[in-house]
């Protein structure tokens, strides 16, 4: 190449993301629309839900669909649509908090392990190996049985168990970056560990972590739904899609598809988030392309 290079003026973040959006594949757009809709429903639940979350609106449990109760009522005579709307808020909110926590824990220790190497890496990695060797669901059930199924316990247990996977990804990604000359150049300059991590390593592994975030969020979400379905997740009277499927499962025998709606809601969100995560992963794998 000659000594002249392509000139691209620096762009603002907003313009860059808008430009990125225009080049997005249709699946990513669909995914973004789905995710945005869910977030809006979750955020505006008290305003768009026809009734209160715990409000018993009918004497009749399992009431059929009607003009008062669009999707009928549940086993206690609460409005099903309202429960679904509040369920979005509870499920998404808790899954989000859990995933953020898992990334904070896993990301921190993963990058530390890569940056420090030696015995610190050995201890952390072997501990993670040990935790990962126990099947997730069984370990979660066991820990929930020990500590009790409070929301805080649920979040902490799932976050800690999920952080092992994020530990591995962030450690592997950081390992690739740590060996590059610019990190060594920072060490040679005398930069401290924190500066090296925050300024040299983190910006280069962030795209990978962000795309992974979408994927992990789905798994956490499904985990909570599964636990609730088993009866050890979110406890009544909180609305949660997994437990709503379980509590109303009997209706399926009567040819009523109502209990499939929360199940469908879970499936749709998972697909939507995965579309977006896929798009991100594709973008982040080609570091040079997005610049």
């Amino acid at each position, binding site marked *: 190449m000659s000594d002249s290079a392509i000139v691209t003026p620096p762009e603002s973040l907003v313009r860059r993301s808008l430009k990125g959006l225009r080049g997005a594949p249709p699946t990513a757009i669909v995914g973004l629309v789905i995710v945005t809709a869910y977030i809006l429903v979750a955020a505006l639940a008290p305003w768009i839900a026809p009734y209160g979350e715990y409000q018993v609106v009918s004497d009749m449990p399992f009431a059929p669909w009607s003009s008062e109760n669009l999707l009928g009522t549940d086993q206690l005579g609460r409005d099903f649509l309202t429960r679904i709307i509040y369920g979005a808020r509870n499920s998404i909110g808790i899954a989000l908090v859990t995933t953020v926590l898992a990334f904070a824990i896993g990301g921190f220790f993963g990058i530390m392990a890569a940056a420090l190497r030696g015995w610190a890496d050995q201890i952390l990695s072997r501990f993670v190996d040990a935790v990962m060797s126990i099947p997730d669901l069984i370990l979660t059930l066991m820990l929930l049985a020990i500590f009790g199924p409070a929301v805080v316990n649920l979040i902490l247990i799932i976050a800690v168990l999920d952080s092992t996977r994020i530990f591995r990804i962030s450690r592997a990604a950081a390992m690739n970056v740590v060996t590059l000359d610019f990190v060594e150049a920072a060490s*040679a300059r005398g930069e401290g560990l924190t500066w090296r991590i925050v300024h040299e390593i983190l910006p280069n592994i962030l795209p990978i972590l962000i795309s992974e975030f979408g994927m992990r969020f789905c798994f956490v979400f499904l985990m909570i739904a599964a636990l609730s379905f088993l009866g050890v997740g979110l406890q009544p009277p909180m609305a949660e899609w997994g437990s709503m499927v379980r509590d109303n499962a009997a209706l399926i025998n009567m040819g009523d598809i109502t209990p499939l709606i929360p199940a469908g809601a879970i499936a749709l969100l998972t697909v939507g988030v995965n579309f977006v995560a896929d798009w991100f992963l594709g973008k982040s794998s080609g570091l040079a392309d997005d610049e």
Partner: protein
Amino acid sequence: MTNELSVVAAGDTVLSISDLRIEARVKDEWLEIVKGVSLTLRRGEVLGLVGESGAGKSTIGLAALGYFRAGCRLAGGSVRFGGTDLLAMPESRRRALRGTKIAYVAQSAAASFNPAKRLMDQIVEAAVTRGGMPRRDAAARAVALFRSLQLPDPERFGDRYPHQVSGGQLQRAMTAMAMICQPDLIVFDEPTTALDVTTQVEVLLSIRKAIQEHGVAVLYISHDLAIVAQMAHRVMVLRYGEAVEEAPIASIIDAPRHPYTKSLWAVRNLQGASHAATGDDLLRVEQISASYGTFKALDGIDLAVGRGQTVALVGESGSGKSTLGRVIAGLLPPDGGTLRFDGAVLPPVVRKRGKDMLRRVQIIYQSADTALNPRHSVRKILGRPLAFFHGLSGAQRERRVLELLRMVELEESYADRLPAQLSGGQRQRVAIARALAAEPELIICDEITSALDQIVQAGILTMLADLQRRLGVSYLFITHDIEVVRAIADRVVVLNKGRIVDQGAKADVLSPPFQDYTRLLLESVPEMTPDWLDRLVERRAA
């Protein structure tokens, strides 16, 4: 295989490319990267393709196989092989020709061999599956080729795995693989670029011998005109996908018509002013030893770098020259020995060195691609050492960033760019500016021009000499390139297998009487005359 193409008589045209145009996709746009190149190649003839990176040499070389890399497409022209148009025939027929009638030798044999299979299996594969040769015959022919390529223990060489032989041997094994079906045309794409100079000589000799014995037509691609001069009859000089000049080898070296051709040996023409030793040593390395695990990389190194001087540290790969650079920078603690900087003992690791000590010694890396954080703008890259060492901020820092950019001959607008938006040479200039930002007294330059084209190298070396004159900074210049040493060094230290084998003023080390290893090293550097290799063989035989 019976094929009408195999009956090409000696002296016949084997390959004729006319008005070849190839386009490459760059960000949704098709750009022409080969712009109407024509060439003909006769049986027994070697044509050299010379040019710098991005000139389109490899693209043309692959087109001679009727192949285009992913993201490239044919835009026009024809490639005729023995009278038939390669580009017009179906892919299946082209595939039948590749490996049997047209062969290719890639730059990196280490990356081209399958590490999980024995060499013999890979070398005879094309002959057995495409050429229809019985395996036993193919293996016998391979052994004959090993012998003709002067590989050690030719009978058993094929039993080894790729990792069990040296880089030079692997490159020759690949040549054997190309020749096994007795092709009419072989494309060599920089076959010795990844090798050390002393190994390169052996590989060049055996490739040349094999070419002469088999009388094939050869397209020899290299960025180094001196090497092509030893191998080729004719040379085509390429630039930006166009043929700049085509002539017999002797006339292109003695009387290049195009000024660009002359710039291909720009570094050879550099004349550095030498600096007399001022007496006080800035850096003293005393009895330094270092190792990686049980491997001893450095053994009892003693050297000194005078203030304002350039000391070149020369050696082949694995000689320990980069290791010494890392030890001095405090990145690798030595096993023993002392470093003295400006009279004071330099602590062995970065952590124990004070900020001011760190400031005074800076290091620049070979590959600016990995030495600059791809997510940081040039402003941030240069601004950090200014803030870190000198506590500069705001307008003061900005002024200094722009000043540094001017010092390395870059425009001020480059401050906003990311490394990916710069060319290789510009990136290295930014890396140099980052080192200068600390206002150091010693800069360790670790092969900083090795990855760059000649003309860019010459520009950077001239700039470094100029900066030295203005700032009085000392360089410890780590390199394997004798031309670079000639251009800029005051003193030369020759390293071999972790030991210093020779050191002294440039004039003493690089002129007779030579120390043995220095002579070997100097002899192995290709000279810009077509008979260099022949004379070398004669001298060694004598």
